[in-house]
């Protein structure tokens, strides 16, 4: 069963088209990174998936229509929509009480366990906590829910690198168990590259790239080309070229490893590099042509 399935998902605000009839299928047990520039439509897609906004087209999340069945959906799905949406007046213990009171799949002992690893006091109000602690609290609450789908929209925005690393570490080690599905969006692509099983690029409301990380590692190679080989390298049709310290770094799609190794130093490309490559190629091509 697909966890999320969308066909022709479309959402317009007035004349601005935020999501331009996209098709999307996320299988269960995957960790999908949805990467896109600001205003690409990521949050709108998420809002549609979570039943926060009406949409056109077909969309099923865990077999339900999110717009009409949000409250039922939220028994099996949960989300962290950016940082700092926890109500500032709430005490930590009140949050625990409330979750235990309304959520059928919330395991209070588990949440207490996660909180015990932090310095968060049970009696503190959210407004007294630092930004990083609020993120920790939210994650502790959410990870104690035995959910099938977790949606994270910029969950680590504004946190320092230590908190960010810790956030994804605990998500992977304490939460993800291959029966859950996680969809995450962030601008710090390089930090979650090793976490993802799939990656998807979205731009101007359309999905412009979509592949599994296995396929990504198989297909894409980056070569720091020796200057004398640059012409030969260009002949192999790199999808992107950039200059670092006067040497060309070329990104190739589906070219044999041995062939490239002869041209210079092979490097593992980052998702961020591919993202830049795909988006700059796309802005050159006709809109949506890269699909």
């Amino acid at each position, binding site marked *: *069963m697909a966890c999320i399935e969308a066909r022709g998902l479309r959402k317009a605000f007035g004349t601005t088209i935020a999501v331009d009839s996209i*098709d999307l299928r996320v299988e269960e*047990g995957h960790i999908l990174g949805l990467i896109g520039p600001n205003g690409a439509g990521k949050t709108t897609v998420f809002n549609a998936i979570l039943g926060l906004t009406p949409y056109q087209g077909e969309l099923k999340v865990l077999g339900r229509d999110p717009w009409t069945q949000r409250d*039922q959906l939220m028994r099996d799905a949960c989300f962290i929509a950016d940082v700092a949406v926890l109500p500032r007046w709430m005490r930590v213990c009140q949050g625990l009480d*409330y979750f235990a009171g*309304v959520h*059928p799949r919330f395991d209070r002992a588990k949440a207490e366990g996660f909180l015990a690893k932090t310095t968060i006091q049970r009696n503190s109000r959210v407004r007294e906590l630092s930004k990083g602690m609020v993120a920790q609290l939210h994650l502790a609450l959410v990870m104690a829910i035995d959910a099938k789908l977790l949606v994270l929209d910029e969950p680590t925005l504004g946190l320092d690198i230590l908190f960010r690393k810790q956030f994804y570490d605990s998500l992977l080690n304490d939460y993800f168990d291959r029966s859950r599905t996680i969809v995450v969006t962030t601008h710090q692509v390089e930090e979650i590259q090793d976490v993802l099983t799939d990656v998807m690029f979205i731009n101007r409301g359309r999905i412009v790239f979509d592949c599994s990380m296995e396929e990504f590692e198989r297909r894409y190679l980056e070569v720091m080309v020796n200057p004398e080989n640059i012409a030969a390298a260009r002949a192999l049709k790199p999808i992107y070229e950039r200059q670092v310290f006067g040497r060309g770094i070329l990104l190739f799609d589906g070219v044999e490893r041995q062939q490239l190794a002869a041209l210079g130093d092979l490097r593992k490309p980052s998702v961020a590099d591919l993202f830049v490559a795909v988006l700059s190629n796309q802005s050159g091509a006709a809109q949506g042509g890269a699909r």
Partner: protein
Amino acid sequence: MSTPSNTVSGIPVESQAGAAAVITAGRRMYWSVRRELWEYRSIYIAPLAAAGLFLLAFVTGLTLSPAHRHEGLDTPYVFAAALIMGTGFIVGIFYTLDALYGERRDRSILFWKSLPVSDLTTVLSKFCIPLVILPLLTFAIALVTQFVMLLLSSGFSVGPLGARMSFFHMSLMLLYHILTVHGLWYAPIYAWLLLVSAWAPRAPFLWAFLPPFVIWGVERIAFRTSHFLAMLQYRVTGPEPPTTVRSGNLMEMISALTPAQFFRTPGLWGGLALAAIFLAAAVRLRRNREPI
């Protein structure tokens, strides 16, 4: 545009889903109401403060002029109840105006919507506060205040309980008045404020009070009548008792309608129907609205 599922073999979700606790609608409602009391502590602090201040003034009055303590004994009792009820009414207005606006303003609506609580439950729990919680709370506080007053005044000279009305009778009438007028009769007022709170892009206070003012003005200029104003007055002052008993004291007057008369008042049912419409609209709006 599909994600191939070759990386992880699909484990059936059903077998993984642990035993989920059963959460009844009543329990969700209970926790939603408790949540409101956590957030808006003025719901109980303000009437308590009013009662405290009143008692302070009452004690001061007793000590400064003990000679007057037998004069019109029920008047301060009614005044205490009126003060606490008035505070409750004002708290109810500010509470309902902020209830669905505040969560959009501070973006916490995204947090609340990430929980399996429907918009209907949320709006109803917020409506419960002025309809049930505030009346019961103001009654309890008024009762305790009056009882303390009784103890204080009889502590000075034993025996003379207000002869005209037994304390018990007065309390029952107060409860009746609070539940009928402050709960049921004011329901459309609170529902309207909730609706504005769910809709207003900003300044809900303005949006709540400007439209009635405009309607009154337009009616006055265009038709030279003031039916709308009369309607509002009727709603705020409460169902009118028959004119024959209006000469009685304040306490008798406010509870002069018998339950049979009260529940036969068309204004009550019209008001409740209007409240239901406002609430349904508020539920729909809450589903649609995004953080400001």
